[in-house]
Structure formats: structure tokens, C-alpha cells
């Protein structure tokens, strides 16, 4: 056992924190207000090596773990969750890294850490959210290509991605539902592929979210992730084991950042002739918030470490994900409360936290789905 971060991990966290503290504050409000993706910020993060750190050296990354990727996500979210989502510009690359063919890895992966491409993955549909196995976007196989038709909903990076992994129905007649799907890589330039950015999200407005339309989009057969059809669902579950960890870390980061703001404010703000923090009512709130953050962090670090050490534990990952989402929402609610009227006003940046935090309870598996997974692991079917 060893609960200390390695010195490399400490360095990575520190560098990510310094970058975020230096760069995020000046653009955060603007990106939130105008719902724009911070492209220059993303480029700079790529230049400095923060994007796609889990990508192997052979494919242009530094070959670190998903845990290190998640540490960066935590530090980014700590400063600003919306800007922090630039970490998600490699979303979907896990499919290629884990299951892709050698040519796919060489073609797509190196572009991501270099800042030459943005990725996404499209799973959710208007009528298939938590119930992933009901995805109905169809990919019909022709002689040398697939023809894709259908709609995808709430897709991160949907309107800015250069290519995305799309979960499609390819083997409708398979008896078992989880064997009916395949993951296909679709480039933005393909004919019949359209996107429309979704506006007026509650939070995380610096992150692009779009609806995707596929009307008879043709992609070559070699865009199938892996060698065999019918593996998509199984691949997705493995991808979720990584992306859920990253999102869980974002929950920790959001809560930690909010906690720090509340601590600072409690020391400065005076009422009844003394700092707010000298009142036991406020002290207890802060103690409870800090405890929630530490508990969520303890679960996340363990879950992330397990992923990188070949001991993937879906139960623990789901625990980390729902708990840190809930912790973030609870902690940020108290952060706003401690800031009072100032917390409620946009110009202090606190109300943005309140809006941003909520996403962690929804994205990459709602907390209800996480609980079902945990219960299934414990009780069996």
C-alpha cells in the first residue's frame, strides 16, 4: 500500500493547476456567456502536453495512465469546469486506443495530443439514453462501405469534432441485444453528416454539445473500430470504465475549487463584527464539505489507480462517479449559500459553479444508472 502520489504525478498536478490558474480565469466568463468552445486555450493545452496523456508514445502521446489524465481533469475543473472540458477533446480515442486496428491508431491518435484534431463519441440518441442497448442509428454494410442513418443527441464536441466514434446498430438480428452494435469512426467531412449545436445548457457552456444527423452517410468498412462487428457495446463498457473515472475526478475538482472559494470568503467576509468563518454554523458546513471532497477523492484515486493496474472494478468506478457527482452538487450548493447574495450573482463566478456541477450527476451514466450497476454487482441479477 502507498497512498502518496508519485513525484511525477505531483508535478503533473502542479503544472495543470498552474496552467489553469494562469489561463482559465480570463476566458471563463466569456465562454460561459457566449457558449463558445475556447479554441485558443485548447491549442495551448495541447502545446503544453495536457491533452491525451494516456495515448501511447507510439501514437504521439506521452504514454501516461488514465489516472494522470484524470488528475489533469481534476485540476482543470478545480479552476473552471467549463474551460476544463478541453480535456475531453480526446473523447472517444479510448475506443481506438483499446480496440482499434493498428492503421486506425496511427491515423487518428497522433492528431489529438498535437492539437490537430478534436474527437468525440456519439452514443446517446433522442430515445436511447441510459438504455444504451436500444441505440437505433443503423449502419448497413454494403460491399466496401457502411451507410449510416439516424440521430444522436447531447454529443460532446459534436459540432467541433473532426471525427467521432459512433455507436451503430449493425447486427440487428443477433439474438442478444449487447451483440447488435458496432463502433464506427465518422469524419466530419462525410456527406450527409450534419450537426447542430445545442444552446442554453444549464452549465458547462464552454463545452460544445450537439445533435448529430446522419442521412445515408457512407464510411469505408475499415472505419469499423476493431476487426469484428457486434463488439460495440462491449467496447463501450470498457470505454465507460475510463471516461467515468475522468468525470468523477471533475466532480472532485469542482467541489475542491468551490470549497477553496468558500474558505477564502469565510475568512474575509465580516458580519456581526467578525469573520463568517468564526461562526460554528459555518465551520461545520466547511468541515462537512471538506469531508465529502476527501471521501470522493479517496474513491476516485483508488478507482483510477485500479484502471491503470489491470484491476478494473466497475462497481468501484460507479461508486466514485455517482458519489463525486453528488458531492460536487452538495458542496457547491453550500458554497453558494455561504456567499449569500454575492454567490447568486454572475459576476462572482460562484453561480456558474452551481450550474456546472450538476452535469457530473448526468453525463457518462446518470447517478441512477451507476447505482443500478453497483446493485447488480452486489446482488447479481
Amino acid at each position, binding site marked *: 500500500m502507498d497512498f502518496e502520489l508519485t513525484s511525477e*504525478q505531483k508535478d503533473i498536478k502542479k503544472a495543470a493547476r498552474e496552467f489553469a490558474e494562469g489561463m482559465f480565469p480570463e476566458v471563463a466568463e466569456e465562454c460561459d456567456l457566449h457558449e463558445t468552445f475556447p479554441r485558443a486555450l485548447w491549442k495551448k493545452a495541447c502545446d503544453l502536453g495536457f491533452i491525451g496523456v494516456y495515448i501511447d508514445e507510439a501514437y504521439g502521446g506521452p504514454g501516461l495512465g488514465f489516472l494522470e489524465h484524470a488528475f489533469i481533469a481534476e485540476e482543470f475543473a478545480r479552476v473552471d469546469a467549463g474551460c476544463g472540458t478541453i480535456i475531453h477533446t480526446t473523447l472517444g480515442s479510448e475506443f481506438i486506443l483499446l480496440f482499434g486496428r493498428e492503421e486506425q491508431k496511427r491515423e487518428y491518435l497522433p492528431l489529438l495530443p498535437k492539437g490537430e484534431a478534436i474527437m468525440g463519441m456519439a452514443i446517446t440518441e433522442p430515445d436511447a439514453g441510459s438504455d444504451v442497448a436500444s441505440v437505433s442509428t443503423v449502419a448497413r454494410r454494403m460491399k466496401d462501405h457502411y451507410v449510416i442513418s439516424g440521430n444522436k443527441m447531447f454529443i460532446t464536441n459534436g459540432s467541433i469534432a473532426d471525427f467521432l466514434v459512433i455507436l451503430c446498430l449493425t447486427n440487428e438480428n443477433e439474438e442478444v441485444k449487447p451483440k447488435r452494435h458496432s463502433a464506427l469512426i465518422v469524419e466530419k467531412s462525410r456527406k450527409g453528416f450534419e450537426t447542430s449545436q445545442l444552446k442554453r445548457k444549464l452549465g458547462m457552456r464552454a463545452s460544445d454539445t450537439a445533435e448529430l444527423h446522419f442521412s445515408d452517410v457512407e464510411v469505408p468498412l475499415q472505419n469499423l473500430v476493431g476487426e469484428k462487428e457486434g463488439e460495440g457495446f462491449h467496447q463501450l463498457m470498457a470505454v465507460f470504465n475510463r471516461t467515468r473515472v475522468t468525470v468523477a475526478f471533475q466532480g472532485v475538482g469542482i467541489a475542491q475549487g468551490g470549497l477553496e472559494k468558500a474558505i477564502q470568503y469565510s475568512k474575509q467576509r465580516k458580519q456581526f463584527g*467578525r469573520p463568517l*468563518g468564526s461562526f460554528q454554523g459555518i465551520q*461545520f458546513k466547511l468541515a462537512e464539505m471538506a469531508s465529502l471532497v476527501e471521501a470522493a477523492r*479517496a474513491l476516485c484515486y483508488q478507482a483510477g489507480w*485500479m484502471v491503470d493496474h489491470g484491476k478494473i472494478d466497475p462497481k468501484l468506478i460507479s461508486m466514485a462517479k455517482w458519489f463525486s457527482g453528488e458531492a460536487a452538487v452538495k458542496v457547491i450548493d453550500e458554497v453558494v449559500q455561504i456567499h449569500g447574495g454575492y454567490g447568486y450573482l454572475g459576476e462572482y463566478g460562484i453561480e456558474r459553479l452551481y450550474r456546472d456541477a450538476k452535469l457530473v450527476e448526468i453525463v457518462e451514466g446518470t447517478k441512477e444508472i451507476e447505482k443500478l450497476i453497483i446493485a447488480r454487482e452486489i*446482488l447479481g441479477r
Partner: protein
Amino acid sequence: MDFELTNRQKQICRAAREFAEGEFPGIAREYDRREEFPRDLWKKACELGFIGVFIKKEYGGLGLGFLEFAMVMEEFWRVDPGCGNILLTAFGSELIQLYGTEEQKKRYLPPLTRGEAIMGAAITEPDAGSDILSILTAARKDGNDYVINGSKQFITNGSIASHIVVFCLTHTEAESRLKRFGTIVVETDRPGFGAIKLTGKLGIRASDTAEIRLSEVRVPKENLIGGKEGEGFPQIMQLFNINRVIAASQGVGVAQGALEKAIKHVKERKQFGQPIGAFQAVQFKIAEMATWVEATRALTYKAGWMIDHGKADPKLISIAKYLAGEIGVKVANEALQLHGGYGYIADYDIERFYRDAKIVEIYEGTKEIEKNTIARELLGRL
């Protein structure tokens, strides 16, 4: 980073679990009902090496860490908290090992692991609980002796211990309040020492709790731990660092035990034609309970590991202790709820777990004191 238990730790956990599962269930209900310390069980645990695992080998222990002690405690509490408290028979020896003189270590530590002595630590008084600086028990120097007067309240092992570390005022004149105290080993057969067992506790009734009266109790000055006066308060703070982690592991253990009982029950119990575990509301409860247990276990292990690696972190320790106590209570409550009417009667052990769990929110620092400690670490003194 490495989140895997070492092989040694895995073996220790398994051995502790097997011992507890083999020995506790047959007697737990009876000792709870009779409010009696399970003396034979304690003896057996000593023979197998479970008592005082943190005591160094040269003083008769296994020389393990406080993390391993916490792991054994968790396994014991998982099966039965009251019986599990036989591990507290070495309570207070941490002080002797950390701060005692060589003679004190040689005299007091080996009998504990051999099952020849039981210890305790007496800090709380009738009017000084959380506010420990306000204790009144005083040790007056008289030649080569201390003469102790005062009373102590809620003392674990108070009426069964052969010697007790007593937190006393030794230097009322010291300017700093923090330098007014000493910790003194008092043998319970000294004239003037009296203990009254407290009965009617809500839970952990197999664990002895007593009120102690000290009237003109004379002990040689060699009984002062470490031999230096005025060091009592920092010593007690370090004792709290350790025993708050141990208390946290009790919270994790009682929660884990209650969770397992709940899981078993929801698989077996059928209502509306299906096991109640098939209902989503029950599944969500189980998922939440399991997550809380996992989170507090991770915190507790980390806090214990930090102590054993010279990085004791009082904030983290208080976080682990407060959350583990609260989660013990919450999980035991939900587990009882899932058992329905059966959970409410003693035939199903869950009602005992429900009573036992509550103590973790109170002893070794109430959860309110833990929150004060956390807040002070976060805010500094304002």
C-alpha cells in the same frame, strides 16, 4: 501509489475475519444481554496474537502498524462490535510505546499481548468531555510519589483493567494551559482507586465502561509516562490521532457487517412474488450503503497509512472518524429498515448493530469535535 493490500495485510484480515466468524456469533447476544466482558474470548484472541499487534516484537507484540490494528478492528466489528472491543484491552499502551521509558515499556507492554493484563486510558471527567483542557483530576507531588485525586467518567475497561493511564493536572501553575498535564500509569489495586461499572449502555455492552474515583491514590513518580512533566497534552493528542483511526475502522466494520446482513436478507426475503432485492428502491439503498462504506474505508486506510509513515494528518483523521461514525449509523439504520419488523427484534442481530453503531459518533471525540478540528485546519484560528 499502490492501493493493493500487501499479502501480509490480506492474511491478517482473513485471519481476523475467520476468528471473529468462528467465535463471536455464538456468544455475542448473550454478552450483550448480560453486559459482560467476554473474558475467555479475550484470552483466546491473545493466544492467537490479535491483541496489541502494534506493540513492538521486543515487548511481546507483532510489531505491525496502526493500519493493521485498524484492519483487525474492522474485521472484528464487522462480525460483532461488542465482542470486537476485546481489542481495546491494549487501550493506552500506545502512549507507553510512543513516550514511555524503557522500564515502563518492559513492565507494562508484554503482559497485554500475553493476556495477563488489561489496560485503559482515563481522560474524560464528569464535567470535562470534549473540553479536555478542563479536567480537574490532579496529581500532586509528594516526595518520590504522586498523589492523585479526582474522578473519571465513561472509561473503557475501567472496572476490568489492571492498570490505567490517567490524564492528570500536574502543573496548574504553567502559563500555557497546554503544558499543565501529565499522563500517569495507575495500577488499579492501589489504595484509594475505585471503579464502578456503568450499566445500561445503549450498545457495545460487552465492552466494559466505568466511572473511576481516585482518592489520595499514591503512585511512584516513575509511573509518569516518559518521565517528563507537562507533556501530557501533546501525548493525548497523538493518542487521539491513533485511536480516532481505530474508531473510524469500527465505523467501517459495523457498516460493512450491517450491509452484508442487508444483502443476504434482500436476496432471501420475498414480497409481492419476488425477492425484495429485485425492487429498484431496495437496489438503490444497497448501492448507496455500499458506496458510503467504500468511501469511508478508503479514508480510514489512508489516514492509518499516513500515521504509520510519519505523516499523521489530523484533518484527514477527523474526516475519517466523523464520516465513518455517521456512515456506521446510517448504514445500520438502512439495514434495519430493510429487515422490517424482523430487524426490530433481537433474534436478528441487526438491532444490536443499530445500537452498537452509535458509539462511534461519540467516543474518541464526538463528531462535533471532529468537525471543529477539521474547520480549524481549514480556516486557521479566526
